[in-house]
């Protein structure tokens, strides 16, 4: 993997709605308290005058951060695992900073300290009672408004894009962006027909209507199978994961990221583009299910109650970089508004998720008529499958070309110079490998 240049992932942090520097927070006397009080997606590494290395990562682990130490005490870090391999570190000397942690390293003393400065507390207690939904919706609306106002203060002068599939999550992001930030371009992925025919996917049709409803430009990104396959290595390397769900998502995002990068170059804007997405919502409300395609099941989930499952899914955001890593590779900064107010979603009672159409209920309570009715009425769809009624998208393309889970693992191992049978030592149960003791 040596020779692959990577970008540095941008940090975003706010105290209240005021943009602040994440590295400045990490440098304060009480970094744990400063970071815990902030909202953001960031990862930082700085060296104190004493020689101590201080590495931090945001509460959900939206931004990734890896470090390695060699025998001479050289400490290096990167947002991308492969960067460290490219700099000569062996794979088994590379470690991740866990979400919500501060890690301090003093190489001269072979000392590592490990401090968790923030966690996400989940409501695991109970059923929905009358009035609950309305109360939670009020809190979520307030939190989302705060998040979008904060993003607006960061966005000044940048061109804004929204990754829009026409589903509930991304439409909510689009509506709030239009209302609280302003003009943006909606970007939607769709697979072109086998002969390059521009057949609009279900996502395309819904997203186009939402964009028209909001009066914003609509930019479809239509790729044929060959073009999608060309992006597989990019998705694996910069998505930093081999698990099929995340790879299929990363492929969609690679196509969108490349298109935004190209659009942006033509715009002549000196500032990097800023993309807002609806990612993380599905983890926060455990809105995932198995997908059947040609007699096989994909995206299998742990057999857990929905309330328990969401805690696991959110903690599993530690590993996999299907959005930030991939978009950054194409020069696109990305912000995930739902991740920034995860606490109000984590406070939802698990009983909600046992009711039919839980997400529709929740979004309707939060957003009301600001979301077009057709979006509420639309059956659940995922960008990587293309629509609700028929499975297509990147999932179908890969499977039709023999690129199943096993093939993704083999290719990832090759790209990362790993032994395939050791992949589980690097990602396990949704976590990148980390250490609470000084690496040997």
């Amino acid at each position, binding site marked *: 993997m040596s020779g692959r240049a990577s970008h540095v992932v941008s940090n975003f942090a706010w105290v209240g709605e005021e943009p602040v520097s994440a590295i400045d927070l990490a440098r304060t006397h009480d970094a744990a308290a400063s970071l815990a009080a902030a909202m953001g997606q960031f990862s930082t590494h700085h060296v104190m005058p004493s020689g101590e290395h201080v590495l931090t990562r945001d509460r959900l682990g939206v931004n990734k951060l890896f470090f390695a130490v060699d025998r001479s005490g050289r400490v290096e870090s990167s947002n991308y695992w492969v960067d460290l391999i490219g700099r000569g570190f062996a794979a088994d000397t590379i470690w991740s900073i866990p979400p919500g942690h501060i890690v301090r390293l003093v190489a001269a003393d072979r000392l590592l300290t490990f*401090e968790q400065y923030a966690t996400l507390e989940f409501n695991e207690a109970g059923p929905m009672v009358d009035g609950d939904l309305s109360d939670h919706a009020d809190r979520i609306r307030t939190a989302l408004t705060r998040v979008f106002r904060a993003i607006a203060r960061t966005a000044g002068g940048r061109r804004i894009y929204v990754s829009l599939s026409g589903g509930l999550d991304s439409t909510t992001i689009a509506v709030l962006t239009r209302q609280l930030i302003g003009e943006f371009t909606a970007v939607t992925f769709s697979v072109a027909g086998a002969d390059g025919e521009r057949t609009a996917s279900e996502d395309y049709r819904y997203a186009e209507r939402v964009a028209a409803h909001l009066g914003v430009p609509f930019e479809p990104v239509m790729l044929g199978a060959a073009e999608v396959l060309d992006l597989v290595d990019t998705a694996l390397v910069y998505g930093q994961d081999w698990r099929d769900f995340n790879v299929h998502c990363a492929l969609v995002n690679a196509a969108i990221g490349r298109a935004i990068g190209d659009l942006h170059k033509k715009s002549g804007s000196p500032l990097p583009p800023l993309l807002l997405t609806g990612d993380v919502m599905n983890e926060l409300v455990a809105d995932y299910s198995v997908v059947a395609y040609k007699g096989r099941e994909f995206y299998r989930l742990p057999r857990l109650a929905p309330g328990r499952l969401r805690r696991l899914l959110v903690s599993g955001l530690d590993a996999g970089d299907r959005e930030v890593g991939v978009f950054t590779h194409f020069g696109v900064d990305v912000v995930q508004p739902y991740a920034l107010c995860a606490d109000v979603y984590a406070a939802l009672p698990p009983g909600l998720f046992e009711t039919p159409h839980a997400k529709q209920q929740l979004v309707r309570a939060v957003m009301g008529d600001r979301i077009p009715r057709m979006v509420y009425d639309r059956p659940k769809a995922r960008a990587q499958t293309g629509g609700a009624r028929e499975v297509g998208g990147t999932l179908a393309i890969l499977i039709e070309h023999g690129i199943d889970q096993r093939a993704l693992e083999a290719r990832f191992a090759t790209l990362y110079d790993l032994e395939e049978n050791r992949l589980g030592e690097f990602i396990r149960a949704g976590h990148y490998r980390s250490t609470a003791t000084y690496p040997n």
Partner: protein
Amino acid sequence: MPYDTPEGLAQALELFIRHQFQVPPRDDQFTRAVNLWEAGYVDSIGVAEVIAFLEDTFAVTIPPETLFDPDFVHIDGIARIVHGLRTTSRPDRAPSGQAYATG
């Protein structure tokens, strides 16, 4: 068997794994020392189910770095780790004595 000994924890975990992952009763390869992940008894999704079982049954939080402990591959090792989490406060694991906030 109480959960205040590694043996008690191991027994409960073995029962869970046998049931959850349908390990045949006469599978001679399945022992408390076998590498659950490499031997294929528990796949990548199943690891998450094991973690949920450990956390919910034994009232512990499995920190991410624990998943990569060389012992966190077999029943006896996992039981020892969980026993340690139940009986040892986490600050002991930080060489500088810096507090490990558990939130």
